[in-house]
């Protein structure tokens, strides 16, 4: 690659030393051959501006082949990556307008430094574009003010009003606020006080090539170098206007940080505009969650600013709600409960009569006290009041049919009253509530003692299979003679 570059410069030097018509010089032919074969390599090297100028000279011929157009476009694209010099600009002016239109103008759409340099070059060589093209340029990318000023040079002075009208209409139909703003700003530049000549783009470093673009002194260049049409516009302004404009533009050409900020904010605004719906949804969801979080905090918060007890604090309410069962608790409920608990205490010493009195007391306060009914039945069974026991237990089961062991007590009461059928029925009901091996064993023994040995065996085997870790046995009830023997 370096070899190609070296050869190129050697041939360029010898070309200058040779005499005669350019087309007849030997170096010219060799140079053209070299460019024809190795142009991409040459453009990849760190080209100086005058290299591009030489390349343009080499490609300046009336031939309009697609290959030439492609090479010309590559040269101009590469040249737009670095700071152009006057020699290159002069060479650009030598190109045919249609060459420039097809190679230089597309570079204006580039969002990096190439776009800015392309506008500057187009303005410098006095290129003009059709009025309706400006709206497409303006919406294609974000625009620095310097670029907008340079773009204004591309408007023919006679078409300024037309361009303005087109942009005004375009702004009315435009949904993007940024684009509307850029149209308006460009119209203001058109009818404002433009500088007499294009301004060098305010870019310190070329994005892709990394070439440092030094702020050239072209802003104070000779006015005579301006293209004729641009001059007609520019000359209208007086020198003090130019100064005033320079001062207006000055902030954008100051520090890097300052000049970057408008582009950045514009990009942010552009992102916001293009993602309006998503951002709106995000905003609504965030708002909902913020409000909900605030409210939930308020619901849960216990740090009251002023410590105020409830209005009924210290007063005896008519009822409470049990925090575990949600039952309604009254003073009567509590009184009945107290009697019931006392009855339970007597039961710990098998004092069934005293306990029964307390359970009856509890029932007199609260007749639907299920546990008191059950315990009353239990006590009556032990004092052999089988009828009373059955009444209490049946009442308890009526209130709560799933009450455990009430059926067992009923079965015992029935068995004691020799109501075998009733006892079997209650045993079965108890086993329906829960497959309790103790109840099953008692039931089996009952069956066994009442002569139903097969059923008893079957039941025992069934529950033994269910509870293999327990030992379930059938015992025979001692008859009267055996009892007598035991007594003796």
């Amino acid at each position, binding site marked *: 690659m370096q070899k190609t570059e070296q050869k190129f410069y050697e041939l360029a030097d010898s070309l200058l030393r040779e005499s005669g018509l350019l087309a007849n010089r030997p170096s010219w032919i060799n140079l053209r051959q070299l460019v024809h074969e190795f142009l991409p390599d040459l453009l990849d090297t760190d080209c100086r501006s005058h290299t591009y100028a030489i390349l343009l000279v080499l490609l300046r011929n009336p031939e309009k082949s697609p290959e030439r157009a492609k090479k010309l476009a590559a040269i101009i694209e590469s040249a737009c990556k670095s700071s152009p010099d006057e020699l290159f600009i002069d060479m650009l002016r030598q190109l045919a307008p249609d060459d420039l239109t097809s190679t230089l103008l597309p570079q204006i759409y580039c969002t990096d430094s190439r776009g800015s340099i392309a506008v500057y070059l187009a303005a410098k060589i006095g290129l003009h574009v059709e009025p309706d093209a400006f709206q497409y340029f303006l919406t294609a990318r974000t625009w620095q003010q310097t670029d907008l000023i340079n773009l204004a040079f591309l408007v023919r002075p006679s078409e300024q009003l037309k361009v303005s009208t087109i942009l005004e209409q375009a702004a009315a*139909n435009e949904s993007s606020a940024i684009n509307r703003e850029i149209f308006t700003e460009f119209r203001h530049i058109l009818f404002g006080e433009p500088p007499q000549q294009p301004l060098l783009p305010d870019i310190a470093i070329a994005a892709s090539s990394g070439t440092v673009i030094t702020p050239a002194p072209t802003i104070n260049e000779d006015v005579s170098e301006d293209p004729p049409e641009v001059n007609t516009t520019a000359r209208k302004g007086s020198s003090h206007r130019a100064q005033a404009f320079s001062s207006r533009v000055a902030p954008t050409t100051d520090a890097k940080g300052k000049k970057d900020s408008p582009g950045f904010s514009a990009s942010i605004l552009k992102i916001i505009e293009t993602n309006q719906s998503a951002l709106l949804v995000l905003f609504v969801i965030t708002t909902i969650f913020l409000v909900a979080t605030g409210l*939930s905090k308020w*619901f849960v918060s*216990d740090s009251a600013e002023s410590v*105020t007890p409830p209005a009924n604090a210290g007063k005896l309410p008519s009822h409470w709600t*049990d925090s575990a069962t949600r039952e309604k608790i009254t003073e009567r409920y509590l009184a009945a409960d*107290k009697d019931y608990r006392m009855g339970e*205490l007597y039961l710990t010493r098998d004092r069934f009569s005293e306990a029964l009195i307390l359970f009856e007391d509890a029932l007199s306060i609260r007749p639907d006290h299920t546990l008191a009914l059950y315990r009353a039945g239990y006590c009556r069974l032990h004092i052999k009041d089988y009828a009373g026991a059955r009444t209490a237990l049946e009442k308890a089961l009526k209130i709560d049919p799933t009450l455990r062991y009430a059926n067992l007590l009923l079965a015992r009461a029935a068995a004691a009253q020799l109501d075998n059928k009733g006892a079997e029925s209650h045993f079965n009901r108890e086993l329906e509530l829960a497959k309790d091996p103790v109840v099953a064993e008692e039931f089996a023994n009952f069956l066994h003692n009442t002569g139903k040995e097969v059923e008893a065996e079957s039941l025992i085997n069934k529950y033994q299979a269910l509870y293999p870790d327990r030992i379930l046995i059938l015992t025979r009830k001692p008859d009267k003679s055996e009892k007598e023997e035991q007594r003796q």
Partner: protein
Amino acid sequence: MKKSGMSLLEIVISISIAVVIFIPAMNMFSTTGQAVFKTRNFSFANSAARRISQRLMAMPYEDIVEVPLPGIALFDAPAESFFAPFLNTSGTNSGAKNITQADMPEFYSYLVQHDFRYSLSVSNVSFGDGDEIKSVGILITWSENNKNMMYRLYVYVPSL
């Protein structure tokens, strides 16, 4: 010409969608908040009752007496009661902390706000020869969303 902006129909649909999302979200937050609120009160009542039951086991049998409803407040409790002092991390009386505005302001505010109280329902049964048992119902009451709540715990304390 293309008109920018939103139509009335679009606005109505947007608001409807927002409301449809907003109301269940609000309910979800408020329900969760209420559940947290209730669970916290229940847990506190449970721990207060446990504290009393442990104290009952250690205190002299004859000192276990009835505390009628509406009970004694847990905050600003009288000295040497179940909740005064509430804690003492030091070895001296000076390190004792009571549930007062001065000692434990946030906890005090919480208890005052909900009017946490305790009552004791005591039943004494004597079987002779000094064999006695007390059935003690520990009742913790508090106010929650204008509702009077109660937590009950029953313990049996033998005299021997």
